[in-house]
């Protein structure tokens, strides 16, 4: 976290923070209100509200540096907060966790004044941001992206198309990857901080199989970005993208696992005779317990100052596998719940099909394990 990590206040111990947070949440119920209909609009409004309340009360400020309105302390405090938000079902965990990759990116790569001005808007629920990485022609092979940025005086002119951009239709800003150099590979990619209301930006939400238009296509036609909105230096884009992964795979994963435990609890509630399904429930629980233990190990390594790397692909594979196994178990144990009724289970089951695709496919993760952890050389 470069300049921002210096002189961070130590923050309270995780236990103290958790008990204080729980007591506060018991008194301040942030659950969705009576008008909540579960639509994406409602989810985003609820997310804004949760962030705002937690920011105003100070809970959301721990784990972040003081220069962006934070109160310092380790990132584990953010993991504790996200776990509590997930456990109480205050916000959709995937959307809630987006700050965990966006903010560290700004702290590491944005000019300090820009980070200081912008980060509080995201953390306090004033704004949503998005991340423009994937393209129609560049999914797993992100380094092949073709959106281009050409320097013109003191601006960059961007042309291209992004896809799978979560919450782009709600976003005020976008961390965008584009090609600035002649190099066709990693080296020619740069990152920008784009205002989404800039002329030439068109957003079209994507219909997906689970019925929530969370993802969007973003079209960029002669979009002009001031030169001081580049993140890092020209050519730093790939490194920025790679630096995101450890953030995504530590705090975000802890949040997700916490959410999946709430789903297993719900399944135990909904099952007519859970005792008859002991084997399947035990398997789902074992997979969840395993990824929770692994994620805890990763959190401890992070706290000890370790630089996270390819070993987090193990966490990713365990999590995606556990998520799909849990939702498969839901479908087995609650016959018809997915197929016959428009329920939360249907949405969650369908969404779980993407777990082995987003954030690096299951196959890409196994390639990384084989190459980097097992030392099997090139394919």
């Amino acid at each position, binding site marked *: 976290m470069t300049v921002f990590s210096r002189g961070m206040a130590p923050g309270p111990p995780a236990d103290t923070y958790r008990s204080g947070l729980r007591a506060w949440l018991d008194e301040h119920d942030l659950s969705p209100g009576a008008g909540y209909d579960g639509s994406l609009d409602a989810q985003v409004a609820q997310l804004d509200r949760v962030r705002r309340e937690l920011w105003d009360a100070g809970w959301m400020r721990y784990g972040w540096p003081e220069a962006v309105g934070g109160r310092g302390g380790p990132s584990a405090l953010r993991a504790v907060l996200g776990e509590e938000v997930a456990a109480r079902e205050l916000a959709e965990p995937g959307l809630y966790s987006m700050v965990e990759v966006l903010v560290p990116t700004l702290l590491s790569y944005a000019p300090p004044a820009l980070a200081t001005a912008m980060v509080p808007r995201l953390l306090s629920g004033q704004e949503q941001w998005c991340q423009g990485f994937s393209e129609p022609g560049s999914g797993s092979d992100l380094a092949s992206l073709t959106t281009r940025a050409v320097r013109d005086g003191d601006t960059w002119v961007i042309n291209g198309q992004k896809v799978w951009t979560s919450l782009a239709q709600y976003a005020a800003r976008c961390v965008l990857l584009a090609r600035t150099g002649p190099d066709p590979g990693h080296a020619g990619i740069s990152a920008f901080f784009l205002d989404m209301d800039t002329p030439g930006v068109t957003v079209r939400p994507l219909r997906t199989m689970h019925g929530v238009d969370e993802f969007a296509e973003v079209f960029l036609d002669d979009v002009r970005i001031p030169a001081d909105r580049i993140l890092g230096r020209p050519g730093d884009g790939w490194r920025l993208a790679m630096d995101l992964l450890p953030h995504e795979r530590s705090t975000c994963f802890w949040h997700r696992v916490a959410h999946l435990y709430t789903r297993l609890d719900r399944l135990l509630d909904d099952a007519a005779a859970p005792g008859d*399904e002991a084997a399947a429930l035990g398997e789902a629980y*074992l997979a969840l317990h395993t990824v929770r233990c692994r994620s*805890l190990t990763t959190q401890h390594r992070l706290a000890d100052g370790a630089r996270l790397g390819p070993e987090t692909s193990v966490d990713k594979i365990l999590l995606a596998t556990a998520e799909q196994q849990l939702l498969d178990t839901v479908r087995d144990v609650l016959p018809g719940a997915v197929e016959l009724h428009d329920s939360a289970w249907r949405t969650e089951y369908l969404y779980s099909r993407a777990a082995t695709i987003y954030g690096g496919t299951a196959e890409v993760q196994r390639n990384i394990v084989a190459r980097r952890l097992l030392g099997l050389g090139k394919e």
Partner: protein
Amino acid sequence: MDAEERELLEETLRKTMTATPSGGGLDAALTELGWPDMLAEEPSAAIRAVFRLLGETGAHAPLVNDVLLYEMGRPLGGALPMPYAGGKWVEWSREASVTGTAVDPGLPLLSVAEGAPVPLTLGRQALAWWLLGTGHAMLALARRHVLDRHQFGRPLASFQALRHRLAETLVALEGAEATLVHADGELSSLLAKAAAGRAALTAARHCQQALGGLGFTAEHPLHRHVKRTLVLDGLLGSTRELTREAGRVLAARGAAPRLVHL
């Protein structure tokens, strides 16, 4: 024990396990080395080091008895009936004359009548570390093989189908290790044994496949690890039984216990 002491201990243990004949000989050598004191002073570190290395080296010794006796607060040495999968009971003999009928021919395991209930927490941790070590031994054999052997003019390691099998094996072993590191109670130890059994069985399946015909011969060491996995998985409850038991716990409580915390 700090990291340096642990490393030194592991080095000594590894040498002893490699140089001493398994069974009674190794049992005596480890006692000589101070196994009973280690177990009494730092049970979880001792169990972790000794049993994981039994797995990695392919050696064996009847030390599960000691772990159960220690947890019962009884003097170490001797053997006692232990529950096996399917409601069966076995004794891991310490008599030099005994040869068992287990699929793993080295292990002096005898079928016996049902014995008195035994505490299972530490014993399951011990067997889980052993299974984890065995899994890593199989993975090391398969890894070496796919790097060395060429077919169709390429190393086997360049074929994605095999790479993914071995990746899957490592993921299972790493997941199991995480559960073991955080195993400190009855349910978490049960889950760790299930995770380690599952991981070792996964390793056996994928590594056997990667080794092709070679891994099916009696000359290659793989089969010993495969057979050991089968036997150890059933001792003090199989993966299948333990996961079902965990499911019963969930059903009875109506919620999934969060066993580890930040």
